[in-house]
């Protein structure tokens, strides 16, 4: 390992600009002559749009245009789409309703964009938007996914009777029923996985620009995957062909999934830019973002786990209703199906699993992938069932887990996945030691002495990352392949540019990708530039989500580096006047076996470009290689998180007093960055468990629509986090990487709720476990006694 290679805790190259205020986010971009967009949004959850009167707005100072859905349709701008086909049990395709970028005829959720004002300044656009008069015919609305399926519920889209998008299942129902009949113990839980608002601190933004001289559009956009945005806006929305549309994602201030999707506002910014002949900029206000960014989670589940007489799990079954909101967002259909039910085996050898999922429309903001995407929901189901099962059967929860762990790999689960490698006992064992599990009883007694109820909770989670083998996801309904590309451009002086189709929005790719180059080429990371986020620079790529950039993106880079080294060896053979087979490359130097002849990396790079030594021969000048890498399997990061809480039974306040995480991410490129990803994931998972929750009232109004109303973790919600790792190499990619971005968010909610329920002695506790919720749960179950 070189000092900046794989495994080194290198400080991040990108930090210089962020700590000095020189970051370059979409809202920092200003185009010459730009105008500003402000959206008129529906104040009603469900309403017919009878008429829109734009006359008063159109004559306001600075107004350039007021555009509506009717004009969008007239200009033949296509609808937004969901790109993952799911079929129901009966074989019928999912019921995807039309999703125009501006509602046409009907508004389906509060915040549905109805019209847009384009004006010279943001304030003028906003002032004029207030003058747009929309005559609404208010319709009955439904926000609750279970209520949406009931007879007589308001019907949101004609294509989806009963608001049902699909009724999907996975597994062998009959075999599961038989296993349950033979079981000695059955644990049953009703679970609501609360709706979350991702809330990256950078609000979404877009600038559309149209060059009438070339007929070319440019979109600056807060996106996690610029190429997929271009593909969808070109091929489905029909704005322009791909070669006439450039998408640029500059620095992006957090995504967590919410910036994967193709949104109405970016389509409108492009369309409006052409209509008014000026660049059009839109920046979301935070309260607007609550109504316009895809939300996450929102599952209602009944789940049961069956055990035999020794506590071995014999079967699991779950029935889930998943709320997808008013329209199907880009990848929404995959989240409660192939990213959820396929993980219901957890870390356990479960012979039979059956899961049914109904996805439904409601009059709420669309729901799509949010950090973990389906896997946190699955983990919460499995880890709550195991913990509660242990308590019901009087077994130690750590021991019950150990007893049921998968120990042989590869392991085929009954729900599609083939786990390739892992050592679940190793991470559990290490976590138990670090958390001083043996000392917990004493800590509980000590807490009781100062009037607190102390509890401990486990979460031994699994996730499927490295998304994903193209053939596999294609067979499951994905409309795209999920390989990744990398290009390595060696300059004549030996410095290197790498181009990746991944996109960083906090993950530190400019450092970690450079570390791989440094390791392989023996050059300092400062001699490596990582270019991403611009469709005109990078040919194609699938973006960053699902903890895929290390496992898939860096594997592509690794293969491209292999090709670069192979070609550089050919050049070196000419430089060193030796046979190619005798050329060795080590620590940035080319040598000839058995001699002391050598050539430095920079010499060979220069010779590749001046070509004096091989002019006119078969070897081509230049040193630039590309690779497209398609993984052979998902990766399966796993680990053990242990949470300890102290609950004040008088107020219901639950304080997290200790957190231990031991994760197995395979090979770790930069432990400092990986630990940071774990910290952040835990905080979002703790947020879901303790304070976050999007609440709709009966009329479909979002009552948690601002940072004043929607509680996210502050620094004092969390203790210092104890984070450690175990390593089993991932056999499914050349670097042995599994991925780390979502682990914390997947593991944490179950650990927290298991800890609080342990403390208060009742399992009937909903997320978020706010003081009021915990207090009510304690009162309902009768006052627990401390210790």
């Amino acid at each position: 390992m070189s000092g900046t290679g794989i495994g080194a805790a290198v400080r991040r190259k990108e930090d210089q600009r962020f700590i000095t205020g020189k970051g370059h986010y979409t809202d920092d971009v200003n185009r010459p002559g730009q105008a500003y967009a402000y959206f008129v949004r529906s104040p009603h959850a469900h309403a017919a749009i009878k008429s829109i009167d734009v006359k008063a707005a159109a004559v306001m100072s600075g107004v350039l245009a007021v555009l509506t859905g009717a004009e969008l349709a007239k200009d033949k701008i296509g609808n937004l789409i969901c790109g993952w086909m799911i079929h129901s049990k009966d074989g019928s395709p999912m019921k995807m309703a039309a999703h125009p970028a501006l509602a046409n005829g009907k508004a389906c959720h509060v915040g549905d964009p109805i019209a847009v004002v384009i004006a010279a300044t943001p304030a003028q656009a906003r002032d004029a938007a207030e003058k747009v008069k929309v005559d609404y015919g208010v319709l009955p609305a439904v926000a609750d996914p279970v209520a949406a399926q009931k007879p007589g519920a308001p019907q949101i889209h004609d294509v989806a009777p009963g608001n049902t998008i699909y009724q999907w299942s996975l597994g062998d129902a009959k075999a599961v029923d038989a296993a349950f009949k033979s079981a000695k113990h059955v644990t049953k839980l009703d679970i609501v996985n609360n709706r979350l608002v991702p809330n990256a601190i950078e609000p979404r933004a877009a600038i559309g620009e149209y060059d009438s001289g070339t007929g070319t559009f440019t979109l600056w956009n807060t996106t996690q995957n610029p190429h997929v945005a271009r593909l969808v806006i070109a091929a489905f929305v029909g704005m322009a062909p791909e070669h006439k549309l450039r998408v640029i994602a500059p620095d992006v201030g957090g995504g967590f999934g919410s910036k994967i999707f193709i949104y109405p506002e970016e389509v409108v910014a492009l369309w409006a830019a052409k209509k008014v002949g000026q660049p059009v900029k839109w920046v979301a206000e935070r309260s607007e973002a609550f109504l316009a960014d895809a939300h996450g989670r929102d599952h209602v589940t009944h789940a049961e786990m069956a055990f035999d007489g020794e506590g071995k799990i014999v079967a699991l079954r779950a029935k889930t209703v998943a709320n997808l909101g008013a329209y199907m967002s880009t990848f929404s259909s995959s989240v409660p199906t192939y990213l959820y039910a396929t993980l219901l085996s957890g870390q356990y050898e479960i012979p039979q699993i059956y899961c049914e999922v109904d996805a439904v429309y409601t009059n709420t903001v669309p729901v799509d992938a949010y950090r973990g995407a389906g896997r946190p929901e699955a983990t919460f189901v499995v880890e709550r069932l195991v913990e509660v099962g242990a308590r019901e059967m009087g077994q130690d929860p750590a021991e019950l887990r150990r007893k049921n762990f998968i120990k042989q790999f590869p392991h085929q689960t009954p729900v599609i996945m083939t786990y390739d490698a892992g050592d679940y006992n190793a991470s559990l064992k290490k976590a138990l030691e670090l958390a001083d599990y043996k000392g917990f009883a004493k800590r509980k007694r000590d807490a009781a002495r100062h009037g607190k109820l102390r509890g401990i909770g486990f979460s031994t989670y699994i996730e499927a990352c490295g998304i994903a083998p193209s053939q596999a996801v294609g067979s499951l309904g994905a409309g795209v392949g999920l390989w990744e590309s990398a290009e390595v451009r060696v300059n004549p002086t030996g410095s290197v540019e790498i181009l990746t189709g991944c996109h960083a929005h906090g993950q530190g790719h400019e450092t970690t990708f450079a570390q791989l180059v440094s390791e392989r080429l023996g050059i300092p990371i400062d001699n490596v530039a990582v270019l991403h986020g611009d469709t005109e620079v990078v040919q194609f790529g699938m973006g960053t989500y699902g903890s895929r950039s290390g496992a898939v993106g860096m594997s592509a880079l690794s293969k491209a580096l292999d090709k670069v080294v192979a070609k550089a060896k050919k050049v070196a053979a000419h430089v060193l006047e030796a046979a190619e087979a005798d050329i060795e490359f080590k620590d940035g130097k080319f040598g000839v076996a058995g001699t002391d002849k050598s050539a430095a990396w920079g010499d060979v790079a220069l010779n590749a470009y001046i070509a004096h030594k091989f002019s006119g021969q078969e070897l081509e000048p230049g040193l630039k290689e590309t690779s497209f890498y398609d993984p052979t399997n998902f990766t399966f990061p796993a680990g053990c998180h242990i949470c300890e809480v102290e609950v004040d039974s008088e107020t219901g306040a639950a304080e997290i007093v200790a957190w231990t995480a031991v994760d197995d991410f395979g090979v770790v490129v930069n432990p400092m960055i990986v630990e940071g990803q774990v910290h952040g994931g835990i905080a979002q998972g703790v947020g879901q468990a303790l304070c976050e929750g999007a609440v709709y009232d009966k009329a479909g109004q979002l009552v948690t629509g601002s940072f004043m109303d929607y509680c996210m973790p502050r620094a004092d919600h969390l203790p210092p986090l104890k984070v450690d790792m175990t390593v089993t190499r991932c056999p499914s990619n050349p670097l042995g990487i599994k991925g780390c971005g979502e682990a914390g968010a997947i593991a944490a909610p179950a650990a927290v709720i298991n800890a609080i329920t342990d403390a208060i002695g009742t399992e009937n506790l909903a997320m978020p476990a706010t003081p009021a919720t915990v207090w009510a749960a304690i009162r309902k179950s009768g006052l627990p006694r401390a210790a």
Partner: protein
Amino acid sequence: MAANTPAATATVSLTVNGKPVSAAVDTRTLLVQLLREELRLTGTHVGCDTSQCGACVVHVNGRAIKSCTVLALQLEGADVLTIEGLAAPDGPLHPMQEAFRENHGLQCGYCTPGMIMTAVDLVRRKGHELDDRTIREELEGNICRCTGYHNIVKAIAAGARAMRGTGAASKAAE
């Protein structure tokens, strides 16, 4: 405001990062808008519209304030310091900036300028030896969605110690 009436404008003069600045602004312009849109100092960010997130924290007359919560016109004659002015251009970084890098106290970088400006003010108010609890409580007005705060807390403790003797804490107040 009636249709077609131009917005009222007024002129404000203040000092930003040591330089005198004068701008004619719409009277409803917030300080953060003046900084970002008029002066193109885009290191100060906007993350919310209810003064919770702290991405917009700058120093006014030596004290940290949320620049989304004050009108530009209220700052006639004020001395404003933004993230861009914390260290001299081409000079060494401020110790708190360096501590954020060294301790991986940032990921996407969006909340970072506000965090750093809050942290520098925290040292001014509470000194150079800051315990975990104090830092966490003092960060009530700054939200980070990426880091889980763990490394931000470490960075602020380290930055506070590194600021001892450098005079960096009192720079903005002078």
